[in-house]
């Protein structure tokens, strides 16, 4: 999909394709601005102009989301897919009580009476660990962690099969973050919904998701089961991301970032979009864009380094593909 700007269209997301199974936690990671939030908002079609969806398909349980009428969309939203926004403070209406906002979602999708809706809302707050009396509080009267939990409670209101979580813990401090993540995990196990978990914190994803996709400059560059991705990152960008996080336990490593910065999507680099920052770049990479291919069962990567690999071939790794010392933190040639 693209954004119309005064200087030309900006293709924010290109060729992103994945599916989520029931009960699965699917992680989507990448730097700020890589398009992951855009994908999430596009699924529910809440992106605002000048954003336009210019191609592709979105199917939910067999239904085509992109051709839904406004009324169908209204029914679809929240009941089939709900979303936990990044900043709870900003996503809650400051002039309405928490209770009102939860009840809103309930009454517009079901025939429950006001009273029943309020009872349900109280239940939801209890599930996430908030006192039901807080239903009458306004958002600014709650702490950051409580607000986030209230938002999660709202998202659960209609028992949707899929919940999208857009950086739900980024704005919180580490201790609260841990609590919230545990809460989400418990809820998921109990209620059985799928989660599309979006974040730039890869370590969080590796712990929590079943499968992970890494996005860069609007495209998916690698997709694999979580453990597999952690043990064997194939794309140089993924490798760089892994090395960017310090670990409290474990040996001391030299922290390397990834030199350079994300590309300007108005004029993306030719060929492989990562080539300006890749230490293993070859002339071909600047011309031809790599396609996402399955190189080992369940493990997809979009990188020319693996052009020669056949599916089923074992011993695929970045080290092998590069043939030697893995380097990072160096300027590309």
């Amino acid at each position, binding site marked *: 999909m693209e954004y119309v700007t005064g200087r030309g269209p900006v293709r924010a997301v290109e060729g992103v394709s994945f599916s989520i199974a029931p009960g699965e936690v699917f992680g989507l990671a990448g730097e700020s601005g890589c398009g992951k939030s855009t994908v999430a908002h596009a699924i529910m079609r809440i992106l605002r102009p000048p954003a336009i969806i210019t*191609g592709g398909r979105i199917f939910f349980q067999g239904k085509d989301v992109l051709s839904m009428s406004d009324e169908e969309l209204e029914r679809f939203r929240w009941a089939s897919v709900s979303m936990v926004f990044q900043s709870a403070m900003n996503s809650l209406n400051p002039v309405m009580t928490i209770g009102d906002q939860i009840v809103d979602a309930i009454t517009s999708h079901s025939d429950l009476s006001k009273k029943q809706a309020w009872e349900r809302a109280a239940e939801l707050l209890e599930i996430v660990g908030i006192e039901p009396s807080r239903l009458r509080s306004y958002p600014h009267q709650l702490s950051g962690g409580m607000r986030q939990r209230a938002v999660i409670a709202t998202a659960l209101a209609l028992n949707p099969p899929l919940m999208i979580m857009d950086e739900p813990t980024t704005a919180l401090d580490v201790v609260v973050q841990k609590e919230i993540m545990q809460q989400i995990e418990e809820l998921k196990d109990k209620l059985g919904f799928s989660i599309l978990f979006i974040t730039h914190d890869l370590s969080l994803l590796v712990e929590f998701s079943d499968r992970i996709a890494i996005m860069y400059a609007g495209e998916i560059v690698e997709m694999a089961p979580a453990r597999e991705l952690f043990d064997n990152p194939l794309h140089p960008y993924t490798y760089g991301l892994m090395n960017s996080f310090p670990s409290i336990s474990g040996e001391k490593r030299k922290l390397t970032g990834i030199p350079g910065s994300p590309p300007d999507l108005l004029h993306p680099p030719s060929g492989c979009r990562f080539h300006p920052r890749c230490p293993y770049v070859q002339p071909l990479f600047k011309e031809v864009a790599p396609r996402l291919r399955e190189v080992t069962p369940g493990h997809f990567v979009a990188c020319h380094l693996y052009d020669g690999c056949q599916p089923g071939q074992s011993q695929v790794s970045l080290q092998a593909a590069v043939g030697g010392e893995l380097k990072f933190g160096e300027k590309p040639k």
Partner: protein
Amino acid sequence: MATTDPKDKVDTVEVSPTGQAMVIPSTSPTPRTERWRWVKMMLANRKALVGFVIIGVFILMAIFAPIIAPGDPNAFVGPPNQPPSRQYILGTNGQGADMFAQLVWGARTSLGIAFAVGIVTTLIGIVIGMTAGYVGGRVDDILSMLMNIVLIIPGLPLLVVLATFLPPGPLTIVLVLAATGWPWGARVLRSQTLSLREKDFVAAAIVSGESAPRIIFREILPNMTSIVVAGFFGSVTYAIGAEAGLEFLGLGNVSTVTWGTILFWAQNNAGLLTGAWWTFVPAGLAIALVAFAFSLINYAVDEITNPRLRAEREGSHVLRKHKIPFSRATPVLRAKQESAAGGR
């Protein structure tokens, strides 16, 4: 959604002298090249262009008055209250003077007063507003209180009372209007100065030993040019209407020719009751057009400086081109073949 620094995302709403609420977008220091880009964008904007053209016409009218309508505009040229004819394209007023000449010469004084007021209020606003914002503390408290006092007192009654005690004339009007109109711009400049003061480039200037006045005028002020200019236009708009109001009430010098005094005489000579519409319609229309032109320019400046307003406009062009009906959901624009093959 893009992550923005919450400190930068503060849009404030101010009410301009004409009662319009303007959204003042957040500030971040604009680099030199950026500062003149908006000038170019203004000229490209249709609304601003119309505004400039209208004002241009009237300014030319004022400058070339002696050539367009030679002679004394108050001179008796024919029977009073004559309707427009080939000889006198706007007819004659209650005293038998040529209405067209009155209008043209009136432009001089009216526009002169309005621009003078604009300049004076802008200057006062810069000095007081920026001092209050930059120095802070007690000085700020005192100046803010002064601003609030002048702001809260309703304009016209104050103007009326002031004008009765001063000798009638254009100078009085300029003084009185400036004395009541300066706080609007000053307040906006003060709050912008307050937020710009916290920025790094000011800290750098302080550390490198620049004196306070130099910082205010060389560092901070250039970053506020768009607001200062918008304030100037707002003041002129206010002045044009307010001076007409005062003169209409008879508080200006009724023997000078201005658009407001034309209306005063029309009312007093019962032009309404004799059906002589040409004695008041053109002058009022001129005032309205000038005020409208400035408002248009301000409206265009709003659109240009507020990226949100602009972004949505650009998007809607594309949608309209492809005839996509209005909906709050993200629009889907497919190539023709795809929608025929895919879809439901």
